């Protein structure tokens, strides 16, 4: 990475390089002479967290009666949805109460399979049927329906708010660049746990707070997709709207938005998956549902239960994602759903019929217990067997990675005086991307420093960097191999797509099962989560290399590996860097989750603030993570942009068609 601007050696000759070296030397000197420049004195710590907590407490005291009232209102649909899908409802009726059972499993499963058939034909119907069968047979139905209820309530809210923000961003570009876009960045990079705390305080403990946090987390992709799609609508379409005399409102709602519906549906799908991800995470802190089941099982080291619940999460994610993709590919999704009423009526009728029949035939109401089965300890035994028989091998691997990769990085980052780390990062940022980014780096690292989070920030970076190194070492060879063969390429593409839809939490399960809690298990989980963008970007970039260049290489007599080495990889390099960038961001997001298995990073700080109900502390740590993430992202983007300017490479991925101006 550090070779980006140095590639042609030109930088060494530039004066600013010399200046940078001089400054670095001075910093090293200072750090040896001034103790405060090596270890930040705790007395200098800014009580930002405490101030925030006090402010929030003041706020809670004075406005929580409003927010709690809102919570009451918002709760109604949530209660309704979970009542319908999972819990059943009690309705007061005169003096007695009528107990309504939840909807019949047979009805819901039938409707799900029907939806699969309608949107994706036989194959999707089969997938949905298998998914439902798994959930039913392994006793995960109830947890799954609870999860689904939260998703069903959150998605419309997230989608509508995302749509509105996206439209606003399109209509007011200035507002977008100065307020909305950075806001969305922060919403996506601050770990959700961090704003879970203030929402809990404001809206009370309960599912509503989780729901609001979920909406905050899941809304940005919808807003981004909407704004991007609107900005990219052809100029002619906008001129058409003007020429037929549309008002601004008509232009947006009747011309532009419907004409970009396919893109919006892609955004919708992303929102659904993000919602699921967040619902799982939120359920761990008491909302109940599959995430909670997994966490409990993990804590009790009940591998079978943990695995079964984890697989249920995977099943739901895949089912939702494939259904969403299929709907987005319908020729006229909106029309298809609007005009043919039987698409709705048939499954709803079926659900009602099954539920009514369920009153008569109990097995339609509750899936018969006798039919359920479980892996019954088999998995637990298998893992134990692996742990016993391969303990030495696995331990050797663990020790190897720890002592040759992780610990050196850790020791370097945690023992180097802060002023050197901060200074070097800033100088690097300046050389790669200029003054503004250097400022951003000082801000991001300085923020962690003055809030007394330096050590935790360094641990966070250490985990992310180690994981990114491992993910790159494993991911790039996989991608090179996959890019060579058509069949393998397609299979890997689908696999990566599916893996990316899985809630991040799922990745923790096998790692913890095999390696217990600790940094190495955390590393494995982060690698598993962060490797997908590397594979995806590398593979796509290699495939996008123009055919004539490859032919030129062949005609020179390159072997396959020479072709990779001298032609494909150099051309794909900028895009691969973008993949690595994504991987680091994924890793940062994952760090918060791995805090659940006891790493000592910023994620842990957030998590501890959550258990201590200390909102200020959580927000500060969350912001620290977000600033680091945003800095790394901008640094990579700038580096890649510089590279592309230099080599005029256009691989079709980092490239966005610039909407041509109205002539």
């Amino acid at each position, binding site marked *: 990475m550090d070779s980006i601007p140095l590639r042609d050696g030109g930088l060494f000759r530039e004066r600013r390089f010399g200046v940078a070296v001089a400054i670095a030397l001075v910093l090293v000197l200072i750090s040896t002479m001034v103790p405060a420049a090596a270890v930040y004195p705790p007395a200098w710590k800014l009580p930002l967290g405490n101030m925030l907590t006090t402010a929030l407490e003041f706020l809670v005291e004075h406005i929580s009666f409003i927010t709690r009232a809102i919570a009451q209102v918002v709760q109604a649909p949530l209660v309704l949805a979970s009542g319908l899908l999972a819990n059943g409802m009690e309705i007061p009726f005169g003096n007695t109460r009528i107990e309504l059972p939840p909807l019949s499993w047979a009805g819901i499963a039938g409707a799900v399979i029907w939806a699969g058939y309608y949107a994706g034909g036989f194959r999707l119907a089969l997938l949905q049927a298998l998914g439902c069968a798994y959930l039913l047979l392994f006793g995960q139905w109830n947890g799954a329906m609870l999860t689904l209820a939260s998703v069903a309530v959150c998605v419309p809210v997230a989608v509508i708010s995302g749509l509105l923000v996206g439209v606003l961003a399109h209509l007011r570009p200035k507002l977008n660049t100065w307020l909305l876009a950075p806001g969305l960045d922060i919403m996506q990079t601050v770990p959700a746990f961090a704003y879970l705390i203030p929402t809990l305080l404001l809206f009370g403990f309960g599912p509503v707070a989780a729901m609001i946090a979920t909406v905050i987390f899941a809304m940005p992709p919808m807003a981004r997709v909407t704004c991007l799609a609107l900005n990219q609508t052809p100029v002619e379409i906008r001129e058409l709207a003007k020429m037929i005399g*549309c008002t601004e409102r008509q232009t947006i709602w009747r011309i532009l938005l419907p004409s970009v519906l396919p893109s919006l549906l892609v955004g919708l799908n992303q929102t659904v998956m993000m919602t699921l991800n967040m619902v799982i995470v939120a359920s761990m802190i008491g909302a109940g549902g599959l995430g909670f089941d997994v966490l409990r099982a993990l804590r009790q080291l009940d591998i079978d239960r943990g695995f079964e619940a984890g697989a249920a999460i995977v099943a739901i994610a895949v089912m939702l994602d494939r259904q969403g993709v299929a709907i987005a590919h319908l020729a006229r999704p909106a029309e298809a759903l609007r005009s043919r009423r039987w698409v709705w009526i048939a499954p709803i009728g079926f659900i009602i019929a099954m539920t009514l029949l369920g009153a008569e035939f109990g097995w339609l109401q509750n899936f018969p217990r006798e039919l359920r089965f479980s892996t019954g300890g088999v998995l637990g035994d298998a893992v134990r067997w692996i742990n016993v028989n391969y303990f030495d091998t696995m331990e050797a691997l663990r020790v190897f990675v720890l002592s040759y990769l992780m610990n050196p990085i850790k020791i370097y980052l945690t023992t180097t005086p802060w002023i050197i780390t901060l200074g070097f990062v800033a100088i690097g940022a300046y050389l790669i991307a200029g003054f503004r980014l250097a400022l951003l780096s000082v801000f991001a690292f300085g923020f962690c420093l003055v809030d007394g989070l330096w050590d935790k920030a360094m641990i966070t970076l250490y985990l992310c960097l180690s994981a990114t190194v491992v993910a790159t070492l494993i991911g790039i060879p996989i991608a090179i191999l996959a890019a060579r063969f058509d069949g393998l390429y397609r299979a890997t593409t689908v696999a990566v797509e599916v893996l990316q839809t899985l809630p991040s939490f799922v990745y923790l399960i096998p790692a913890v099962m095999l390696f217990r809690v600790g940094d190495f298990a955390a590393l494995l989980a982060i690698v598993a989560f962060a490797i997908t963008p590397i594979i995806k970007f590398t593979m796509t970039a290699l495939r996008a290399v123009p055919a004539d260049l490859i032919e030129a290489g062949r005609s020179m007599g390159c072997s396959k590996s020479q072709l990779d080495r001298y032609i494909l990889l150099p051309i794909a390099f900028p895009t691969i860097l973008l993949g690595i960038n994504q991987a680091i961001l994924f890793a940062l997001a994952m760090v918060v989750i791995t805090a659940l298995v006891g790493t000592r990073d910023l994620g842990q700080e957030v998590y501890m603030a959550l258990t201590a109900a200390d909102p200020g502390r959580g927000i500060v740590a969350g912001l620290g993570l977000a600033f680091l993430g945003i800095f790394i992202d901008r640094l990579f983007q700038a580096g890649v942009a510089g590279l592309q300017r230099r080599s005029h490479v256009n691989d079709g991925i980092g490239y966005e068609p610039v909407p041509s101006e*109205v*002539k």
Partner: protein
Amino acid sequence: MKKEIGQLSDSSVKLSCRNLWKLYGPFPERFAQESQLRQALNSGREFTALRDINLDIRHGEIFVVMGLSGSGKSTLLRCLTRLVEPSFGEVLLDGAPLTSLDAQGLMNIRRHKMAMVFQNFALLPHLTVAENIGLPLKIRGSDTAEINRVVPEMTALVGLSGMSQRLPHQLSGGQQQRVGLARALAGDPELLFLDEPFSALDPLIRRELQGEVIRLQSRLKKTMIFVTHDFNEAVRLGDTIVIMKDGKVVQTGAPEDIVANPIDDYVGSFVAGVDQTRVISCGRIAIPAKSSAYAVTVDDRAKIVEVADLVANSNGPVGVVDQSGHVSGEIDATTVLRMLASGSRERLAS
């Protein structure tokens, strides 16, 4: 300029512009005074897309704007519709200044009097042919009964009757542009703006659609402003052609006048590519009549190519008669032959 507006008493003028300028650069959208315009012109930061354009477009004519890429045709068209705000000058519709209308007034004019056909069709991908055609009516708030009456009529008019339920991506390019035409005509506009409507189509389809425009025009008598960079298309369709270069008007006139008398080399290079016998009429090449009665006569508006057979087969010169049946001159086989020969030479060359 006030006095020039006053001159517009000619009732046959539908749309016109006076001293129209368009400058791109760091300037306000519109200059209030001529001095500000002058200042901007000297600023060195301006790009002048239109300079001092004056045009009169007559009611019911096809007015073709022609020029090379970048000459400002699209900019002119868009200034006339105010899709692009002219920096200076007036646009007058039926003698009333369009340039001083507010947003609401402009919207009303566009809803009821104007329509546009786009180079890349600009069909909405999520609407069927019928819905696309009915869109302007819907937006302007027409009732369902009217939409249901007009849409099939327009669909039939452009020959797409069987396809009204298809989506745009299920149509060929030519069919898509037919939808574009039908949509533009659906609101029964007085003015039709077409920006290189057939440039994205292959030559055969292009000819077919040009024929369609001629046919529609003979029935509907709209005022059309038609942008093209294809001089043959301009000659075939235009009642008046204006030729532009670097944001300026180089020559304006009937196709025949331009073909017969190109004003400079720029125009001449366009003219060189056309077959003159298809453009120039007999009246123009006739020499004074030497006798008072001819066995064979031709109409003075007939194109040379149309009378070639007749002239070649007659013995001696053929009389040319004007609209009142009066003999105004004569042409002989040699002249016709010479024109035909030069026409085919050009065709060989091009």
